[in-house]
């Protein structure tokens, strides 16, 4: 929709051109969320397209994803066979409620910065043990673990004006086996739960719970847990108030599905 309160547009060549941050500024990535609601507090858009960051760089160490990489570009990426968790990328792209047309514009960074429980890029980068590079407006770049980035529904660790620059998915995480489960109240709808388990052959199991909880919850087990251990771990990691409550699922159902799909994942990775 038209953002009628926006009066100004900046198209920097480098992020350094934006040193002074003030209320009313907003980084514009794909714009697919910004333009989907009134943004009455925004008066200036700062275009990230003009920064021209290379979208994807794959190397021996893993995959470097620019925040401005479009979902469509990520979806088209063909991970090498050794990256056994590579298909998680496609699965997560397909987990958007939005259509492929929106993937043509929406960015990985935009989705991470939205930090919604149903943000599939959050599920992806947390499950694959990503590391995020953030560029504060003043001061040196910093790195945060993906698990620590999202702090609540539509909340994250970004300071005002701080830019998400990129995400690194380590090759080690990409090489693990994975199991993926997602569910929504309507067919191909918005995620009510999105669970990803990973495990290096005979290694430790990591279970990442997203969409069901207000922020991602990652459970790490020595080897493979038993059914009871898994359930206990879920119960102690997720207090009642953390199960997310919105029109896309009730807290009780989300917990129930987390047990159910968590158990399926446990079994799948045990094999």
């Amino acid at each position: 929709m038209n953002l009628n309160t926006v009066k100004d547009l900046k198209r920097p060549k480098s992020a350094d051109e934006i040193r002074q941050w003030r209320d009313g500024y907003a980084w514009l990535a794909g714009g697919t969320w910004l333009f989907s609601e009134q943004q009455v507090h925004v008066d200036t858009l700062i275009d990230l397209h003009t920064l021209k960051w290379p979208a994807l760089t794959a190397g021996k160490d893993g995959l470097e994803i620019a925040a401005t990489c479009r979902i469509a570009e990520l979806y088209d990426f063909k991970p090498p066979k050794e990256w056994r968790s590579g298909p998680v990328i496609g699965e997560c792209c397909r987990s958007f409620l939005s259509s492929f047309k929106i993937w043509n514009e929406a960015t990985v960074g935009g989705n991470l910065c939205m930090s919604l429980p149903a943000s599939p890029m959050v599920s992806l980068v947390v499950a694959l043990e990503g590391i995020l590079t953030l560029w504060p407006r003043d001061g040196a770049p910093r790195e945060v673990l993906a698990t620590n980035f999202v702090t609540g529904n539509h909340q994250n660790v970004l300071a005002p004006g701080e830019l998400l620059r990129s995400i690194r998915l380590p090759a080690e995480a990409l090489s693990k086996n994975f199991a993926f489960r997602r569910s929504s109240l309507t067919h191909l709808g918005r995620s009510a739960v999105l669970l990803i388990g990973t495990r290096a052959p005979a290694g430790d199991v990591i279970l990442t719970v997203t969409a069901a909880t207000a922020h991602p919850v990652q459970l790490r087990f020595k080897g493979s847990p038993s059914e009871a251990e898994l359930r206990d771990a879920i119960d102690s990691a997720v207090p009642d108030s953390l199960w997310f409550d919105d029109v896309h699922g009730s807290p009780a159902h989300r917990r129930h599905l987390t047990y159910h799909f968590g158990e399926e994942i446990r079994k799948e990775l045990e094999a």
Partner: protein
Amino acid sequence: MKLKVNGKEFSASPPPGECLRMFLRDLGWFSVKKGCDAGDCGACTVWVDNKPVHSCLYPAFRADGREVTTLEGLASEGKLHPMQQAFLDAQAFQCGYCTAGMIMTGAALSDEQKKDLPHALKGNLCRCTGYGSIRDAFDGKTNVEIDDAGKSSGASVHNPFAEAIVTGHAHYTTDVPLPEGTLHLKVLRSPHAHAKIVSIDRTKAMAVPGVVAVYTWEDVPRRPYTTAIHEDNRVDPDDTYLLDNVARFVGQRIVAVVAETEGAAEEGCRKVEVEYEILQPVFDPEEAMVPGAPVLHERGIDSHILHPERNIFLELHGEVGNIAEGFAEADAIYEGDYDAPRQQHVHLETMQSLAWRSDDGRLHVRTSSQGPFIVKGRLCYLFGIMPADLHVFTERVGGGFGGKQDMMSEDLSLFATMKTGRPVKWEFTREEQFIGATTRHPMKIHVKLGAKIDGTLTAIQYRIVSNTGAYGNHGGETLANGMSGPWAIYKCPNKKGDGYAVYTNLQCGGGFRGYGTTQPTFAMESALDELADLLKIDPIEMRRKNVVGAADKMEAIWEESSDLTMGSYGLDQCLDAIEKALASGRGLRKPEGDDWLEGSGMAISMLDCVPPTEQRSGSEVSLLEDGSYHFTVGSVEIGNGLVTAQQQVVAQIMNCPTSRVSFINSDTDKTPYDSGTFASVGMMVPTKAVENAARALHEKIVSYAAKSTKTKPEDCRIEDTFVVHGRRRTPLTELRAAAEKEGENLAAFRKAYGSPRTVAFMAYGVRLAVHRITGEIQVLFSAEAVDTGTVMNPNQLRGQCIGGVVQGIGYALQEKMVYNDSGGVINAQLRNYRIPAFADAPVTEIFFADTYDSIGPLGAKSIAENTINPVAPAIGNALKAATGVRFTALPFTEDRIFAKLQEIEKSPAPV
């Protein structure tokens, strides 16, 4: 910036916050629609450098240096793109409002994507078709049939707007260049469910650059009225003011701002300062009826509210036979409570209107209404306008489903035009549709049924509490309707019903496909299965035993005589068809795994083809100079295919192809009066008027031909472009020229009334799988059998049915409006109020009963509303069959049903 749109160069400098959708529309590319303005519906899909995007989310400035393609630019050198051709061949649209986006998406799909349409079409919503004909288009099916002279009744002739729809040239309500100096209207809506307005300060709003005027309750005529559109305005309470000094629901319009731009009007609304005195709200209708509850409407205005002090707009009671004796005779009794909630229409085109004053001083309103004539009358009353000075009309309307049977935008647009002298446009946002428009009335229904051991019903008792919300528009009529049909379909000597339409501080209910019968049908059809279960009788047999037969009286709880007549009877065929279809085993297989349970269910419904209130229409059919025909009719084309059917009726009677029948509809200046297009009247009243006029013209032409050729009228007949008498053939053009010379007018005008009224029947069957643990439901097979008399246009009718079924599936399985504790809707976006997408819509088979109605035009009768009614109860019955659990509250979403499923044994339940 410079860009190319459809091959043409443009240079422009869009404001930084402008989206491409608005930018393109401002350039005159009106195929770029708004269904949501938020990325959810896809109606705005265009290509940027050949990639499809939702133009409502695409910053216009980013189109710099790019090539944009809209539907208008898709055909090349006069040749339709294959996707346009496919949509044309399949007639893959009804209102056509979604079509531009569908085609622009479809035409961009790779072969790989076409294999997975549920995914590929995730971002394209259609509310009319249920995706049946859209699936056909992708499958390359041709649904249109050749239209031969005299053979159009019963043929799937194409929609007269088809070409315009697939090329983007069909013009909906605001798809016109805005008149010079058009102002934009926006309203400030109440944040409180119940509050008195203490003061309104407009100073800051008036200071916003571009704001022209700010209107409050003090500026508008204080004339009570109802927004509901009915011929007889006394059936609705006069409980509404144009702008009021009391807010009765969150979302009620409080202040109107008109400005040079939409942005300025929005800013003006944000700057108005309103001081409220908060009053206690009441949200639950049972609580609202208890003495001492907050009172919504004071007595005082002559508003025909029955018990204002208890918030009861209307109560209805009735009994036939003796209910106590009926239960005493019963061998089995079932009693249950059912909860049928709200549903929003989500017609893809939001409500909108454009008002202006022409140089001659007359006022004009171009609107998306389902009843322009009633709107005109209401506006004349509100503003004291002489009828001759006001013109109200529609062009194409992008869906209605009853949502546009309320006057919700025209009043303020016209008021502002009268005040400012300038054209004024008001377009609802999608959010406003959810918070400020109407919904299906939420109803709580208590049912008690008694039957003999052999299944014969002995007693039917029900109590319905309908939540009409803050205003009573349609509250009484929907209640009366809901207390009739769903119960009258069964013979039973003893029936008793009590009903209440109750005010609460929530948004108001309105007309919605089914019009008050969908909710009680859910209750009755579920309850009947429960009773059959108690008696161990097959549910279809149970119905066969008790339904009205062709010769039976249809009676709910009132013994009065009625003009309701069995013009035809096809319920027996519907029951047989669904029984056979369910037994066939067709459809998808249950998913693998013993956690999946499977079950089938069915339900039936009866529709009065015209409401009991007044309904009238008229039509003129004339023979034109070129030998073709033209008809006028006041009904609205809202995607119901009405004008196609009307064209077919004329063509059939005149023995010509529909291509020789032109028309104009729904215009208070140019067409005869019509009570409005709702309540499934389209076929029965306006089309009947068209039939009457066509028959009269036919007679006139034949007798004129007989007279001028000195033959007997019975020896003359019309054959396409000629009148044939004996061995001679006179071209119609010649006849018409001769008639004109003699001062004979070859035109006929006739009226039609909605009386007597006939009934239509419907049965729906479904087989589904439900996951014992997660609660996920998959519809495996879906079939509807309809008794609609003559099938005038099979393809269109199939579309109406599938559309109704899928809307019913939405109601049963996913649509839910959620309110916070203060009475505000929290999911006022299509992203959060999920109507069925392609992925949610099962393939649905449609069977037509073979009947001919003695009342309707050429033997046809109504259908559109009834299609939704049996869907939710059939799904509930199938769920029960699969799981043994009866769910009584809609919708059956996973998170609402899973808890009760956990006790079920793994072993597959009997189907």
